[in-house]
């Protein structure tokens, strides 16, 4: 197993508040790691630091064994092309249609011809279970679930080795959210991606994650499979995993597993 992301002694401060203190985390190739934690525990901040949108106050992050922020723009760009990010609200470029949104990273690369880009965009659309005619819609004409799918297709357009998902199912109804989880799950199986996701939703967590990292008290409080995490005795974990709703979500997962 090789590490995709290594975080060492990371500390983050916003003004006077410390969000993370001496945080360590290693994410292995091929796993699906879910980051959970209360509101304001710095999950999204950590995700943004992993991909270099924010720089930590102290400590170091290595992606694919290479440090972020080396100061070499060429290397940084190549590193950034190896992962895809799904933003919470999709972050589709509103002046582009769906096709142009998905084609954008490929066109930026500037080496692939238009015919191939066209075929690739259609392939990505079918991978996220959208129809070719959706390619000509504008982002403002899409529903919430479709925006997430298009954003996922765009994140996948550079054939990333690492996929980061910020609240992938927030704002979707349970039915949509379940099918989205299935979609990500099957893509993970097919493409052998490493996936890091931030989520509040236990169904998503139970459906996707192979490992869970609980972020609380400014550090990684617990790290392991869901079953291991549930054994940890801590007020936050007890509240998060052990209320009725959580039990139901986890029960259904277990019964699916045995069936």
């Amino acid at each position: 197993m090789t590490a995709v992301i290594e975080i060492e002694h990371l500390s983050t401060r916003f003004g006077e508040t410390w969000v993370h203190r001496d945080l360590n985390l290693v994410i292995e190739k091929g796993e699906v790691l879910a980051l959970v934690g209360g509101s304001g525990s710095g999950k999204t901040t950590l995700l943004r630091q992993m991909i270099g949108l924010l720089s930590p106050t102290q400590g170091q992050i290595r992606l694919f064994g290479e440090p972020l922020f080396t100061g070499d723009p060429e290397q940084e760009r190549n590193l950034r092309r190896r992962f895809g990010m799904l933003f919470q609200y999709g972050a589709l470029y509103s002046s582009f249609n769906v096709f142009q949104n998905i084609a954008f990273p490929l066109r930026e690369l500037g080496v692939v011809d238009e015919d191939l880009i066209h075929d690739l965009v259609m392939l990505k659309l079918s991978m996220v279970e959208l129809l070719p005619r959706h390619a000509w819609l504008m982002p403002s004409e899409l529903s919430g679930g479709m925006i997430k799918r298009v954003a996922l297709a765009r994140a996948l357009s550079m054939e990333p080795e690492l996929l980061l998902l910020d609240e992938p199912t927030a704002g979707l109804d349970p039915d949509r959210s379940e099918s989205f989880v299935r979609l990500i799950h099957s893509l993970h199986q097919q493409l052998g991606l490493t996936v890091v996701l931030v989520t509040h939703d236990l169904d998503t967590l139970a459906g996707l994650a192979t490992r869970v990292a609980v972020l609380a008290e400014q550090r990684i409080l617990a790290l392991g499979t869901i079953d291991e995490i549930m054994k940890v005795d801590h007020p936050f974990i007890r509240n998060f995993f052990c209320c009725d709703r959580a039990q139901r979500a986890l029960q259904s997962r277990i019964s699916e597993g045995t069936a």
Partner: protein
Amino acid sequence: MSGASIVLETDAEGRRWMRLAGEWRLMALATRYATLNAELTTQAADSSLGWDIRGIQSLDSVGAMMLWRAWGHRFPDNLETRDELEPVFARLYASSKLKEAAPGPALPLEWVATLGRLTLHLWRHLVDFTGLVGQVVLDLGQVIRTPREAPWRESSANLYKSGVRAMPVTALVGFLIGIVLSYLSALQLKNFGADIFIVNILGMGIIRELGPVLVAVLVAGRSGSAMTAQLGVMRVTEEIDALATMGVSRSMRLVFPKVAALAIAMPLLVLWTSAIALMGGMASAQVQLDISYGFFIETLPKVVPVANLYIALAKGVTFGIMVALVACHFGLRVRPNTESLSSNTTASVVSSITVVILVDAVFAIATRSIGLPT
């Protein structure tokens, strides 16, 4: 990471094989895409050629798509493959089965439709604008009936933002225009020995015409664009819908304060800018033509009838109302995307300046017999 490689071989039986190996992934292919693609396409023309892709360590959909296209969207007759590579091609195969609906064919009389769309678009603008004006008039009636419920705080804030804060820039521009106008006129007047007419030219020109239009253009660019952008972003973030759900009238709370603020601020700004512009002109006249400040100030009321000042103030009020209304009209039309925000802001500034010039022409005709020295 080893790049993609192609080797052409002939085996013991005399069959030719293309042996592909290495990383067939986008990032590895990117640097040599054109040459690889050309090579594949030329070789694939020979259908008896065997393909051996067992050496490919990793294949993503870009690499698979390249091969698939080179093969002419089907598997070649002689293909040696590995099980691990199958799913990648299966995905391609699944997606190629989907029927692609091309954007509909162009209509034969496309220009008729375009013309119709434009006309309808213009018509909608007119209807919406009229509706907005009507709503503001109704709001005014409401304010007069129940002054306690009027949005005084918002109006006051707008007055400060678009009035007081605009004073430095209008003063600077006014002063410089005054100097330039006075300097250029002085050059001509000197030739005719008509030096003292500088007071008439500057007085009439600045007070009646230049002051109001100059301020209107500056305010349209400064406050008009800000108003459109503000309302536009409020549309995008659904703040306007939130106001509506709380039973607060958007025209009363957002449009009326802006219109009221500019209706009050604009004539005051006109007064202020004209005064500064006259000062600039006066300073320049003193240097160029040796006309003393005292003489200038004394002569001004004699040659410029006071009616001109009233016309200027009336223009100020009208321009202010027009600029605010146009800005709000476009702000409320913003759709929730960045493109619409930028195009509406542009349209707002361009339209309000155009409207100001048009209204100024109407004023010029309507007041042609008022305030001109006989």
